């Protein structure tokens, strides 16, 4: 079916709106992004499918993406005509029968109810009314987790079916593409983006309009646009969810970008670790082609644009734009010095515009709602929202979208509800291996590009890992250096050798041989690597070290002078012991010990042979009598 006019788009919209807002048939949607699937969401889906078929029920079943509250998964949305959507949480296949019975009997007493949705702002098409029942259930935005969030990027995630282009159209999808192609010139689009103040969501925060303008003004018959979906920061998965839950918003953004700069080809470079995102994007591309929204003569115009997908192969440095381009060209992903910028000489030496996944998803919103509307969200110079993956030792783990300028404390304590297991939050790590650790006494800082950089961290792509008192900051630095050292492409000396040397100093400290002067050398070296490396990887890799040295120097010092790891993480500073008063001699630890170094006969207290213990922690994990404990080692 070809869509070539606004009338066609509206016709699809009207006819499929009833899929989202059913008039008489109840509908069930199971949250099936990678996170939902791995906690059993697919089993729940299959069980619904089986029972609906067996019982021959008039209930529709479909998939949806992830609404972001990962802690509560698997999530199931139940839409009852005129009453609205109920979100059920932690659903298992055993719950399916009860849910179906409740629906069939037209009752409302569902178990495991998390919240209700009566209306939802899909932004582009505005608010959709799903019904006004279930008044006894809390509204979704009355929950701590959602209160204070603002969903623009995740406007459709967890509500619509990501594998159905019609549902995307029903919530206003591809309307912005129509407006761009039929009513706006490239320069007008660039001006609109300029008004919005949108900055690159990949982490560096470069103004998107400037990038576009540079590529637009280049004279060349062949140009490219690229979507950087190589979300390499460990601890960050916003982009994965954006691709899995609302793939068309990215594709629509890219087509608008292609039209604006004059490109006929787009490439999505996505990491191989995200097979489901690849599958959904591939499907979305095919569907968009079927409707003439992608390919030749888009929307009946003379604009042609195609998108292909290239899978990465596990190299963190390929998130850097010049390395990413090299990788697409079939080379090792090693960065090149800039200028020339990709906007001048990018893929195959042609003008190329690269943006991050989240940047692309914002484009249709800006076109539809105007740049001025967008610029009113967030703060001056830091407009719009940002999605963070709030993970680690926090109560409410999940994807959190907030206006830029929101204080860190609001994200950690209000939305995240503080540290898990009644512990205290010690710090957060933002920006992945390029970012830094921020101590809890600075949590009044607002989350925006400038404030975070001032603290020595960076905004980064949106990873926010919460750490409590059981996290050792020296170990965290060691972890990140191990990562960046391993991922350094080896091209420039400061990064290749500098990171290695810094890593060796940290190894020395955590093995108990650290000296006071090591910290001075570490800091000096970190600053040198930062100033002299070729690309973003090396320039930012010292950030975790520099910020922990700045805010947690006492932890380094206790490793060096007292030979103590305060968090009891570093293996050379701890040992496991068995309390002979508590040990019942049940033999479980001796049986489970992978190196067989626990001695003792049945019903008699057991002992750990310290010389051979590998400190894996198995005994502590398996003991049912609290007899095993982790204590500081006396001598190193």
């Amino acid at each position, binding site marked *: 079916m070809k869509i070539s006019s606004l009338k066609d788009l509206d016709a699809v919209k009207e006819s499929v709106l009833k899929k989202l807002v059913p008039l008489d048939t109840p509908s069930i949607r199971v949250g099936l992004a990678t996170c939902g699937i791995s*906690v059993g969401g697919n089993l729940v889906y299959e069980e619904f499918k089986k029972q609906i078929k067996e019982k021959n029920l008039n209930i529709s079943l479909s998939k949806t993406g992830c609404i972001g509250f990962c802690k509560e998964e698997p999530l199931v949305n139940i839409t009852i005509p005129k009453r609205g959507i109920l979100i059920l949480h932690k659903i298992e296949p055993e719950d399916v029968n009860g849910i179906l019975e409740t629906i069939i009997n037209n009752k409302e007493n569902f178990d495991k109810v998390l919240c209700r949705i009566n209306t939802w702002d899909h932004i582009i098409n505005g608010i959709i009314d799903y019904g006004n029942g279930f008044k006894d259930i809390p509204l979704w935005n009355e929950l701590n987790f959602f209160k204070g969030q603002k969903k623009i990027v995740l406007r459709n995630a967890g509500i619509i079916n990501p594998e159905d282009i019609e549902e995307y159209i029903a919530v206003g999808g591809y309307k912005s593409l129509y407006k761009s192609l039929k009513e706006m010139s490239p320069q007008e689009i660039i001006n609109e983006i300029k008004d919005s103040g949108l900055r690159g969501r990949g982490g560096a925060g470069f103004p998107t309009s400037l990038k576009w303008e540079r590529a637009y003004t280049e004279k060349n018959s062949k140009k490219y646009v690229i979507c950087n979906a190589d979300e390499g920061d*460990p*601890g960050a998965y916003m982009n994965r969810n954006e691709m899995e839950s609302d793939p068309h918003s990215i594709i629509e953004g890219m087509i608008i970008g292609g039209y604006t700069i004059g490109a006929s080809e787009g490439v999505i470079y996505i990491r191989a670790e995200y097979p489901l995102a690849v599958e959904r994007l591939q499907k979305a591309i095919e569907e968009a082609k079927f409707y003439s929204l992608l390919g030749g003569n888009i929307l009946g115009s003379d604009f042609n644009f195609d998108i*292909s997908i*290239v899978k990465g*192969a596990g190299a963190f440095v390929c998130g850097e734009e010049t390395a990413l381009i090299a990788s697409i*060209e079939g080379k090792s992903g090693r960065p090149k010095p800039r200028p020339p910028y990709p906007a001048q000489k990018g893929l195959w030496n042609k003008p190329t515009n690269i943006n991050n996944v989240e940047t692309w998803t914002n484009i249709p919103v800006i076109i539809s709602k105007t740049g001025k509307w967008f610029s009113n969200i967030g703060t001056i110079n830091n407009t719009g929202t940002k999605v963070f993956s709030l993970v*680690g030792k926090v109560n409410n783990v999940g994807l959190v979208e907030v206006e830029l300028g929101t204080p860190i404390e609001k994200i950690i304590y209000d939305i995240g509800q503080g540290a898990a297991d009644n512990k205290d939050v010690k710090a957060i790590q933002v920006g992945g291996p390029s970012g830094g650790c921020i101590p809890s006494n600075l949590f009044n800082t607002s989350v925006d590009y400038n404030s975070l950089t001032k603290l020595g961290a960076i905004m980064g792509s949106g990873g926010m890992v919460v750490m409590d008192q059981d996290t050792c900051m020296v170990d965290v630095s060691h*972890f990140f250096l191990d990562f960046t050292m391993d991922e350094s492409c080896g091209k420039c000396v400061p990064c290749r050798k500098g990171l290695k040397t810094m890593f060796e100093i940290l190894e020395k400290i955590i093995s108990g041989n650290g000296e006071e002067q090591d910290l001075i050398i570490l800091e000096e070296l970190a600053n040198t690597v930062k100033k002299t490396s070729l690309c973003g990887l090396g320039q930012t890799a010292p950030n975790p070290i520099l910020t922990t040295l700045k805010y947690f120097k006492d932890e380094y010092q206790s490793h060096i002078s007292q030979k103590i790891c305060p968090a009891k993480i570093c293996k050379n500073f701890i040992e496991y012991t068995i309390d002979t008063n508590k040990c019942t001699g049940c033999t479980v630890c001796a049986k489970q010990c992978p190196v067989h170094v626990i001695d003792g006969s049945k019903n008699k207290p057991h002992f750990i042979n310290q010389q051979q213990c590998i400190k894996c922690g198995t005994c502590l994990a398996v003991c049912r009598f609290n007899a095993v404990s982790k204590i500081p080692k006396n001598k190193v």
Partner: protein
Amino acid sequence: METNLLDNIILKYQNPSGKVLSILEEVQEKQGYLSRESLIYISKNIKVPLTQIYSIATFYSFFNLKPVGTNIISVCMGTACHVKGAAEILNNLEYLLDVKEDEITSDGKFLLTTQDKNFSLNVARCFGCCSMAPVVRINEKIYGHMTINTLPKILKEYGWIKK
């Protein structure tokens, strides 16, 4: 790998953008690793020097140059997994499978295969399942909220026998 299968894969990727990576990825997907013969054949047929192909195969961590075990276990070493004890999980797996880190191969890749070739163990950077940290992937399946206690039980599903 048979040459007609390689030909079919090569034919699939005509667009120069992403061509080499995509071919190598699909060959590895089918074969489990990239054999010397396959690399030479690909190089000749797509007219890319073998040195460049070899450079790619060794640069990207996804590629294996040696045969792998039947089941591939990847321990996520992302930040969220790390702070929730991924190192202990990896350490335990090494002992349970009786493979040790000092066996890292000459091509610099971390891939440890058990003697009976039933398991290969490696580490991954992040599966984007940070909300379920720590995470382990076995073949295509992701296991969240891993603990030392649950490891043996899961391994048994894949034919692991306790020594």
